[in-house]
C-alpha cells in the first residue's frame, strides 16, 4: 500500500449541486406560501406530467437517502418500530413514516403533500407505504401499476399501463383543476430524455482508466436526475459535470490514487457508510467505478421516444431494472462488467430492499460462470446502521480484495 498517496482534487460541480438541491428543497418547503402544489412520488415514478403541470415533485426515497447519509436513520427507524411497524419493513418507508409524525430528519421533514403518486415498478412496499401516508395526510393517492416484465413487454402489459397513464393525467387535471398543456408536456419530455441521456454520459466517463469519479460520486450526483428530471436545471448541470469530468480525464486525474483494481457495485448504497466503504476500497487501490443503481435512471432510455414522450413513457417506466426478470438483470450486470472492464463485483445484500436483493444469488452464480471474476456479497442496510458490523465487513472486503489481487496476478 502506498503511504498516504496525494488525494486527487475534489469534483468542483459538487458544490453547485448542493446549492441546486438546497434551492429545490427550499422551493418545495415554501410551496404552500407560493400557492403551489406538492406531490410525493416514488423514485421510479413518472414525474414528467407533474413537472409539466407545475406541481413540485418530492421524493420520500431521496429524503430517505439524506436521512441515511446524515446518520439519522437509526432513531427514525426505531421510532417507526415504536409506532408498531416491523423492523423488516424497508428503512426508507420506516424513516419516512416516522418523519412525517415527528418532523425530524436533516430538513425537519418533507413539505406536506397535496397528492401522492405511487408507481410499483420498484417494489410492492411503496403501495402500502403510500396508502399509509394518504391516510395520514388525508390526500388523494394515484397508483400506477406496472406488471413485472419477467421475459418482455407484452401487448397486454402495454395496453394496461397506457390506459393508466391516461388515468394519471385525468387524476392530475382533477386535483389541480387545470388542463394539461400538451406542448408543455412535450417540452418536459424532451428535457427528461435529454437529462437521462446526459446522466448516462456522466456514468460512461468512468469507463476511462483511471476513472475520473467513482460510484460513490455517482450516488451523490444522482439526486438531480431523480428530483429534477424533466427540467432545464438538470440538463445544464449534467452538461457542466460532463465537461469537468472530461477535463479530469484529459489531465489524467483518477479519483482513487493509483487505481489498480476496478469494481462494480450492485444494489443501493450503504448511505451511512459511504466514506468508510470508499476509504476501505481505496486502501486496496480499488475504485468502485460503476453500479447498477444509479444507472437505473437512464437504463430505459432505449424505450423512450423523445418526440412522443407521453406514449412511450408507459414502456420506459415499466421496463426499468427492478421490474425485469433476474435473467435480464444478470444480462445488464454482464454488460456493465464488460463496458467498465471491472475485476470484481460487490453485491450489497440490502436488508431493506427485497426486490433488489432477491435474485442476487442467481446473478452472482451467472456472473461467476460467465466471467470468472470474484463476487463479494456483503450484508447491510442502506439506512439502518443496526445491520452493519464493521469488523465483519472489514474481513470480507479484505479477503475479497486478496482474491481480486491474486486473480489479477498482483498478490
Amino acid at each position: 500500500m502506498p503511504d498516504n498517496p496525494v488525494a486527487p482534487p475534489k469534483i468542483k460541480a459538487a458544490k453547485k449541486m448542493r446549492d441546486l438541491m438546497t434551492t429545490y428543497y427550499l422551493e418545495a418547503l415554501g410551496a404552500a406560501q407560493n400557492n403551489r402544489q406538492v406531490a410525493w412520488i416514488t423514485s421510479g415514478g413518472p414525474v414528467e406530467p407533474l413537472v409539466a403541470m407545475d406541481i413540485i415533485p418530492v421524493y420520500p426515497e431521496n429524503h430517505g437517502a439524506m436521512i441515511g447519509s446524515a446518520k439519522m436513520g437509526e432513531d427514525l427507524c426505531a421510532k417507526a418500530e415504536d409506532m408498531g411497524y416491523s423492523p423488516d419493513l424497508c428503512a426508507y418507508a420506516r424513516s419516512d413514516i416516522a418523519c412525517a409524525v415527528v418532523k425530524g430528519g436533516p430538513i425537519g421533514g418533507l413539505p406536506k403533500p397535496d397528492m401522492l403518486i405511487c408507481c410499483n415498478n420498484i417494489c410492492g412496499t411503496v403501495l402500502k407505504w403510500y396508502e399509509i401516508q394518504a391516510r395520514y395526510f388525508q390526500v388523494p393517492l394515484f397508483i400506477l401499476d406496472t406488471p413485472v416484465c419477467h421475459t418482455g413487454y407484452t401487448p397486454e402489459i402495454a395496453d394496461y399501463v397506457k390506459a393508466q397513464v391516461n388515468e394519471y393525467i385525468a387524476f392530475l387535471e382533477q386535483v389541480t383543476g387545470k388542463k394539461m398543456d400538451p406542448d408543455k408536456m412535450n417540452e418536459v419530455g424532451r428535457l427528461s430524455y435529454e437529462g437521462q441521456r446526459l446522466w448516462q454520459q456522466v456514468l460512461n466517463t468512468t469507463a476511462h482508466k483511471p476513472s475520473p469519479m467513482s460510484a460513490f460520486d455517482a450516488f451523490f450526483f444522482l439526486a438531480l436526475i431523480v428530483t429534477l428530471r424533466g427540467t432545464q436545471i438538470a440538463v445544464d448541470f449534467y452538461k457542466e459535470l460532463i465537461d469537468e469530468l472530461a477535463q479530469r480525464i484529459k489531465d489524467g486525474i483518477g479519483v482513487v490514487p493509483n487505481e489498480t483494481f476496478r469494481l462494480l457495485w450492485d444494489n443501493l448504497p450503504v448511505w451511512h457508510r459511504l466514506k468508510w466503504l470508499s476509504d476501505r476500497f481505496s486502501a486496496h487501490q480499488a475504485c468502485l467505478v460503476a453500479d447498477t443503481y444509479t444507472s437505473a435512471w437512464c437504463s430505459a432510455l432505449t424505450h423512450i421516444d423523445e418526440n412522443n414522450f407521453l406514449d412511450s413513457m408507459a414502456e420506459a417506466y415499466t421496463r426499468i431494472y427492478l421490474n425485469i426478470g433476474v435473467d435480464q438483470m444478470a444480462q445488464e450486470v454482464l454488460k456493465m462488467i464488460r463496458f467498465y472492464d471491472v475485476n470484481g463485483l460487490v453485491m450489497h445484500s440490502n436488508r431493506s430492499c427485497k426486490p433488489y436483493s432477491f435474485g442476487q444469488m442467481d446473478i452472482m452464480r451467472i456472473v461467476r460462470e460467465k466471467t470468472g471474476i470474484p463476487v463479494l456479497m456483503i450484508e447491510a442496510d442502506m439506512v439502518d446502521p443496526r445491520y452493519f458490523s464493521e469488523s465483519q465487513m472489514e474481513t470480507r472486503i479484505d479477503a475479497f480484495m486478496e482474491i481480486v489481487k491474486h486473480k489479477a496476478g498482483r498478490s
Partner: protein
Amino acid sequence: MIFAGIDIGSNTAKAALIKDNTLVGTRVMPTGYHHLKAGTRVFEELMQQTGLSRSDIRTVVATGYGRASIDFADKAMTEILCHGAGACFLDPDIRGIIDVGGQDSKAIALDDQGHVDNFAMNDKCAAGTGRFLEVMANALEVALDQMGDVGLTADNPAKISSICTVFAESEVISMIARQEKRENIIAGIHDAAAARVAILAAKIRIRGPIMMTGGVAKNPGMIAALEKRLNQPLIISPYCQETGAIGAAVLASRM
C-alpha cells in the same frame, strides 16, 4: 529460514512456525481482552517451546479478527486466505474448507491450484458458530468439550427449529423443562448448527475433498452432523484449530 503465523481469534490466539515447508510447532492460548498481549505471548511461548529466538524468524504474518493489532507482524492477511493456505499445507488435495470458529463460520472454495477462489461467511448472527454451541452447552450444563461425545449417543435427536441463538436457547430450555433427554437435545443442536453452515457451503458450491478447521472441528457430534448434511466425509487435521496460524506462516514464507 523460519516463518511465523499468528491467528488472533475471538476465543483463542494461535501461533505456528514453519521451516523448509515443515511444521516446527504450534501453540494455542485464550485471547482474553488484549489482542496484542495475547499475540505477543503466544508467539513468545512458542519460541520458548521450540527453543528459537526472535532473530531466527524471518517473517511474521498475522491473521484473525485481531490481525490489525499485531504491530510486530510484517503483514496482516484475512483468515480466509490463511485457512486456504493452511488447509492446503496440511493436505494439498483439499478443495473445500468449512471453518467454524468462535464468532463466525465460513465456507471456502479452492481452485485446482489450491488458491482461494470464493468464500461465504455467516451473517451477523451467532447461529452456526462456536458461540452458539457455547450458549447451548451452558444452558444444558455440559462441558463444551464433552458436548460432541454426548450428542453422539442420542437415540432420537430433537428438532430445533429456531435459527436465532436467543430463540433456540429458549427452545432448548423448554425442552429441558419437558425432560427431553440431554443427548437428544444436543444432537438436535448440532444438526441445527450444521444446517446453517451447510447453507454457506451450498452458496458457493463447495467441492470435495473438504477439510473442517477451527476449534469446533474437535467436536465429533458437529462433525457427524455436518458430514450428514454435506453428504461426504470431512477431513479433520489434528491441527484443525491452528490451521489459520499455519496458513499465515505459509504465506509469510511466500512473501
